[in-house]
């Protein structure tokens, strides 16, 4: 579908009314993506029980968001929910899973372990302190583990980001809003304006470059070269 996203906008903008077409295409794109987030079932630890299982269970029911279609293969998944600690042995594999996912792809880090290494931040020789050292993370859901509702809040946050998200004019570049408040939700009123502005300016992330700049990108290449394609 590279044609629709890459070539069409350039052509469409030239014809009269093309702007409208591109804008409505943007809307359709982001609406469909936001409402159809199929998670990759990637759980390593306790958070997997809460994030991938308890949320999908009858009491919480992830399917209300259309996200119960947990795919086991990264090719068909849209959002990688990193639930649990990432250790050095897992990191290259996780990076690989991420690279196997088809664009557009998003990453949610849930729980302290995935955000920062959490309980294992200190004195552990094998932990990766934060999944964002390995893959670019879009939404962080804190908690140890977060409640299923907190995961839903994270999902809503991600949906909000996607809706605002990419345009067909500049694919691959996403704009993250700084605060996760929903229209009816709570807003943190007293955050300083300049921090807000600074973070927003900083958070225009070029996904491709950010991914390539990650130290694990190189490590994965190296790991794949040594371990993977053995005859």
């Amino acid at each position: 579908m590279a044609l629709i996203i890459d070539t069409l906008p350039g052509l469409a903008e030239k014809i009269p009314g093309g702007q409208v077409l591109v804008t409505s295409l943007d809307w359709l794109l982001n609406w469909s993506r936001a409402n159809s987030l199929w998670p990759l079932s990637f759980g390593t630890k306790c958070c997997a029980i809460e994030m991938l299982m308890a949320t999908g269970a009858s009491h919480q029911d992830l399917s209300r968001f259309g996200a119960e279609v947990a795919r086991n293969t990264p090719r068909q998944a849209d959002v990688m929910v990193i639930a649990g600690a990432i250790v050095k042995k897992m990191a290259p594999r996780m990076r690989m899973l991420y690279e196997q996912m088809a664009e557009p792809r998003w990453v949610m880090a849930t729980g302290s372990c995935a955000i920062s290494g959490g309980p294992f931040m200190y004195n552990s020789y094998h932990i990766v302190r934060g999944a964002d050292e390995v893959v670019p993370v879009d939404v962080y859901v804190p908690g140890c583990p977060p409640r299923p509702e907190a995961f839903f809040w994270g999902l809503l946050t991600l949906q909000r980001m996607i809706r605002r998200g990419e345009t067909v004019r500049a694919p691959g570049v996403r704009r993250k809003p700084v605060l996760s408040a929903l229209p009816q939700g709570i807003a943190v009123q007293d955050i300083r304006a300049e921090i807000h502005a600074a973070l927003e300016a900083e958070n225009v992330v070029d996904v491709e470059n950010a991914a390539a700049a990650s130290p694990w990108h190189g490590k994965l290449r190296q790991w794949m070269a040594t371990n993977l394609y053995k005859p």
Partner: protein
Amino acid sequence: MTALASGIERREKVNRPAVRVPAERLLEVAARLRDDPALAFDMLVDHAAIDWHAENRFELFYHLFSTAHGHALTLTAFVPRDAPVVPTVSRIWPVAEWQEREAYDLMGILYDEHPDLRRLFLEDDWQGFPLRKDYRDPDMLEFQK
């Protein structure tokens, strides 16, 4: 135990019956412990090593349990830190194969004639044995209370 007495002494400061054997007699004692019907320690509950860094030696401990008699015993053995080689007991208690691999992986104990001595948790190219007291890792944030 009297027949085996030489070199075997009681290991003090353990909250269950415990004996210490010389590392070279480990295999013989272990075989006797399992096969003697009066002892019949058929289950190796746990095995790991302690790094007594100040004394420059490792202490291996084997927690045994007998499902026939219900008695328990802890077997310990010292090995020097610079040559931590002991015979494997995996032919006596098969589960030792993996418990010993764990001890090799994390503590660097080498088991002689082990059928499959490999790293267990860490990658094969990992340097060092992390549970040793003198292990230093550049990525590890050490945080002291």
